C-alpha cells in the first residue's frame, strides 16, 4: 500500500480533483503548504521597500491507496496539475505498512 503525496498549484486543484475522480480516486486529504523551489515568490512592496515573498503557496494532496492505483494517480495529477511553467510541483510515493478505517476498524484495501 502506498501514500501518494503531491505538492501542486492551488489554481490546478479543481482540475486535479476532477481527474482523480475520473480514475476512481474521489477521496483524499489535503493541506496548505508553502514551497521553496525554482519558482520564486512574488515581489512585494511596502512603504518603499521591496521584498520577496519567501515562499509560494501550494497545496499538498495526500492519498492513501493500493499499489495498483499508484501509477494512475501519478498520471492523473501530472496531467491535470501541469501548466508547463516552473513551479508545477512534485509527486512522491511513500511506502505504507497499513491503513485502518476509524469508523469500522477495517484494515487494508477495505479501509479505503
Amino acid at each position, binding site marked *: 500500500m502506498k501514500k501518494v503525496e503531491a505538492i501542486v*498549484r492551488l489554481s490546478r486543484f479543481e482540475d486535479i480533483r476532477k481527474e482523480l475522480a475520473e480514475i476512481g480516486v474521489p477521496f483524499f486529504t489535503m493541506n*496548505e503548504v508553502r514551497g521553496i523551489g525554482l519558482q520564486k515568490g512574488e515581489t512585494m512592496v511596502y512603504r518603499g521597500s521591496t521584498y520577496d515573498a519567501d515562499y*509560494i503557496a501550494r497545496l499538498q494532496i495526500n492519498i492513501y491507496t493500493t499499489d495498483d492505483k499508484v501509477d494512475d494517480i501519478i498520471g492523473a495529477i501530472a496531467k491535470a496539475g501541469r501548466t508547463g511553467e516552473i513551479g508545477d510541483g512534485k509527486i512522491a510515493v511513500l511506502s505504507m505498512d497499513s491503513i485502518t478505517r476509524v469508523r469500522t476498524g477495517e484494515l487494508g484495501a477495505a479501509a479505503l
Partner: protein
Amino acid sequence: MTESLFTTNNLWILISAVLVFIMHLGFATLEAGFVQRKNTVNILFKNCLIIAIGLLTYYCVGFNLMYPGDASAGGFIGFAGFGLALPEGAAGAIEYADGSYTYYTDFIFQAMFAATCATIVSGAVAERIKLGPFLIFATILVALFYPITGMWKWGAGWLDELGFYDFAGSTIVHSVGGWAALAAIILLGPRIGKYAADGTIKPIPGHNLPLAAIGVFLLWFGWFGFNGGSVLSADASAVSLVFVTTCLAAAAGAMGAFLVSYLMFKSHDLSMVLNGILGGLVGITAGADLMTPGESIIIGFIAGTIIPFSVVFFDKRKLDDPVGATSVHLVCGIWGTLAVGLFGSMAGFQQFLYQLAGVAAIGAFTFSFSFATMYALKATVGIRVTEEEEVKGLDVSEHEMKAYQEVEQGAPFAFAPQ
C-alpha cells in the same frame, strides 16, 4: 424661550440620538469580538435585528407605554395607544417640552435607548441561544418590560414620586438589561466546554480583540449622547458638566480594572480594561449631572475595580457570560444607582434608601418577568441549540454562513494562489 434656543436644544437631542444609535454598532462589535469566530455571524445578525425590532416595537407600543401621560394607572402602568400620535398643534410645537425638543425628537431619542436594553442581553446569551426564542424574548423586553419600569421613573410614575433618581439610566436601562441577561443565562446554562468535569473554569477567549476594542470606544463615543442628551436640552452648563463627569468616570474605570486585575491575576488583561471603561460609564450614568469631577473619578474607579471581582464571581457560579454584560450593566448599574445616595449633590441616607428601593423594585420586576418569559420559552420551543449545533458554531448551523470565508475563487484556500 426663543425659536433659536429651541432649535439648538432640539438639535442637541437629535445629535444625541445619533450618538446613542452608534452604540448599537459598539455593542455589535464588542460582542462579536468577545465570541468565538464560529458564532460571529450569529451575533451580528442578532444585533442588526435588535435595533430594527427595538425601533419598530417602541414605535408600536413602547413609547406610549413608557410615557402614558394621563393614561397612567397610579404610576404603575399606563398606555396611551398604539403608534405615534402627534400632539395637537404643529409637529415642531415649541410647547411640547417647554422649548427643549419636539415630539418626534422625544420619540427617536427614547427609541434608541430602548433598543440598548435588548442588546445587553444578546451578549450574555451569545454562542448558545436559539435565534427565534431570543428574538421573541428581546421583543417582549423592549415592548413591555423596559417601558413599564422606565415609566415608573421617567414617565413620572411611582418611583419618581418617591424620590428615586436615575439621571440617564444606570438602573432603568443598564440594570434592566443586566437583570434580563442574568435570568436568561441562569436558564440557559454555560457554554459547552466552559467548565471542565471537575468544575474548573476553562476560558473561551474572544476571537477578535480589535473588534472588541472598537466596540468599547464606540460605546464611550455614544455615551456622550446617552448621558449628554439626558440633560434633555443643550444647556451649556449642565451638558458640559455631564461630559466631564462621564469621561473622567470612564477613564477612572479603566484604571480601576487595570490595577485590580493586575493585582489579582498578575496580568494586563485587555478584556478587563475594556470592561472597566464600560463599568465606569455605567456607574456614572445615574448621577452624571450631580457629581463633581472628583466624585465622578471615585465612582468610576470603584466601578472599574468591581469588574474583575464580578467577572470572577459570575464565572465561579457557573453563570457563563461571554462578554461580561452582567458585570458591566447589572453590577455597575446597581453601584452607580446607589452612588447617587453616597456622593454628589443629592447624597444622603434618605436618598440612599430611595435608590435602594428603585434598584430592588425594578430588579425584582425585571428579573422575575424575564425569568418567567424565558422559562416559558424553554418549556415550549426550547431556548438552546443542540450540542452538535453549538459545537459546529451557530454561523454554520443557524445561518449556513461563515463570518470569514476561506475559500477564494480559483483556489480552495485562504491565501493567494500562484
